[in-house]
């Protein structure tokens, strides 16, 4: 990953978002570099999802700039926008699989939209993406309502990977999963990250996931973001950050990681 140039993949400057009189972000800065797994944390209502929506262009920020690969998202021509959208994959909190389509059709949806492929090829690609996230080819014929929570998260990841993105946004990928499934998802993420050379931005509340996978963390406190390595965060004396990283749960997750040396 040394070959990456210095332009950050994502650069957010002075982001400001408010809903009526309630200010969510005020002068928020964020930078994500090539090859990182960047974890975004913050209390409920701190504006994690709003930040994600601003970066993805699903919400027009009330101030500040968002740059992806060095180009300002807001001032992009619609054709360039469409190309840009194809370079990243997103999974939403509840999977957001289209409920009237099978899993395989969900995966094929972006491929169908952007490329003229034969049915045989589409089937084979659906299979590839299913296998890649650890699902069975037979699962492709199922409808989202027939899947368990863990399978939905994986199927959503498969759909996000369909266009071979270099950048992946995950909104609470392990929320609502049992610890074993969540750990398996962490492993899967690390594996895909190393094999596909992905840059990952992940919103998460899951401290285990955070300690196991993330190379850098950004905490949203007081409408801004404080980012740094996990060690930096552990040393940070800001009250919320201190409580977050030194609570009973955090200590347990930390201990586990230290023992396992997973992320050396």
């Amino acid at each position, binding site marked *: 990953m040394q070959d990456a140039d210095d332009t950050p993949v994502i650069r957010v400057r002075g982001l400001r978002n408010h809903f009526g009189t309630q200010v969510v972000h005020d002068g928020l800065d964020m930078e994500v570099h090539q090859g990182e797994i960047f974890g975004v944390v913050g209390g409920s209502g701190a504006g994690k999802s709003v930040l994600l929506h601003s970066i993805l262009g699903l919400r027009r920020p009330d101030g500040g700039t968002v740059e992806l690969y060095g180009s300002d998202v807001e001032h992009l021509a619609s054709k360039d926008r469409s190309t840009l959208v194809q370079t990243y994959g997103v999974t939403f909190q509840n999977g957001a699989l289209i*409920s009237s389509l099978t899993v395989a059709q969900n995966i094929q949806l972006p491929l169908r939209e952007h490329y003229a492929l034969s049915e045989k*090829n589409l089937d*084979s*690609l659906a299979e590839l993406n299913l*296998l*890649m996230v650890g699902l069975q080819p037979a699962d492709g014929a199922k409808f989202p*309502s027939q899947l368990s929570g863990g399978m939905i998260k994986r199927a959503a990841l498969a759909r996000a990977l369909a266009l071979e993105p270099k950048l992946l946004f995950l909104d609470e990928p392990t929320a609502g999963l049992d610890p074993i499934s969540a750990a398996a998802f962490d492993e899967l993420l690390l594996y895909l990250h190393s094999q596909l*050379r992905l840059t990952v931005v992940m919103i998460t509340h899951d401290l285990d996931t955070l300690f196991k996978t993330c190379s850098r963390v950004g905490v949203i406190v007081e409408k801004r973001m404080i980012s740094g390595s996990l060690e930096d965060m552990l040393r940070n004396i800001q009250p919320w950050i201190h409580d977050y990283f030194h609570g009973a749960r955090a200590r347990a997750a930390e201990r586990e990681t230290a023992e396992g040396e997973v992320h050396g």
Partner: protein
Amino acid sequence: MHEVVAAPLMLEPEGDGWRLLLNGDWSLAALPRIEAQLKGLPSNLSGKVSCDWTQAAAPGISPAWALLQRLADIGFRDTGVVHTGNPPDFLQLLERLQADRHAALAVPPAHQTLEGLVGKLGRWAVVQGRHARGVIAFFGRIAKVIGEMFSRRQAVRGSSLGRHIYETGVTAIPIVSLIAFLISVIVAYLGAQQLARFGADIFVVDLVTIAVLREMGVLLTAVIVAGRSGSAFAAEIGVMRLNEETDALRAMGMNPIELLVVPRVLALVIALPLLTVIADAMGLAGGALLSLINLHIPVQEFTARMRESLSTTTFWAGLIKAPVFAALIAIVGTYRGMQVRDSARELGRLTTVAVVQSIFMVILADALFAVLFVQIHF
């Protein structure tokens, strides 16, 4: 070998096997072209194959997967495929996935047989049988809750009932009035044209009065309400089902039939007769207006003639049908809503079914009423 060849694939013999030269764009965008080329590979190759990735630009996962799949189809799996020339990292992953796939697909898919078809027919019959039982059970549950209302005051959900009467009744007044008025104007106009030929203009009053009071007032109102409220009932309850709200109610020891279904049914049973009275009045007003303008029958004469043509039962013959129609519309709407499961498409489908079916039921019931009234000279 440094010039870029347009074709993304070139096959040449090498020793006792083959060498595949991959060149040009091998990204996802080039997949259609690559796919066509892969199809063109002869399928009777044997020996070893080595893929040379030196010239492949920006190799993507999907094209690489397509290549591996095609090579496996040709039969290179056993003899092995070698990748040379700085192949992309993810080939390792893909090769592992290919092994997974092979293991997963070892079970052949079931073929369609005669037994299978008979089985399908049988399953269909069973599903229909269950469905019929479900409808009867639904009626039963509603009846049970209504029965409980007499002994248990709490079962009467006053505020919910009020809200639904307002939503299904009060807010429907403008559209029901307008449509009743216009339709009756049309009927009176058509009638006047025909009757004027016999010089029997005055019978337009009889026509309008009887048509509006016996049939049109209540039928029109029922159809409009089926479109407005039948669909709303199905959609509201359907979304609650998708959100697991009905399950939550049940888990808290509350009965969704009592909370969601019965208030809607009762509200409509109360609101529809009232709407019918309004529709009747507006229909008669429309008839009177047209008679005045087109036939120059003064309003006093219209009302006098109207009284003559009315028998005691005319008004009630229409109104008595309203609660029955209301119950049909509300029960069909709520039942379809309760049936929603799993997906947004189900919700749309069942909402449509609710409207179509409730209109059909209303017209069927109206026909039965017509026969009944003739039999008993009502």
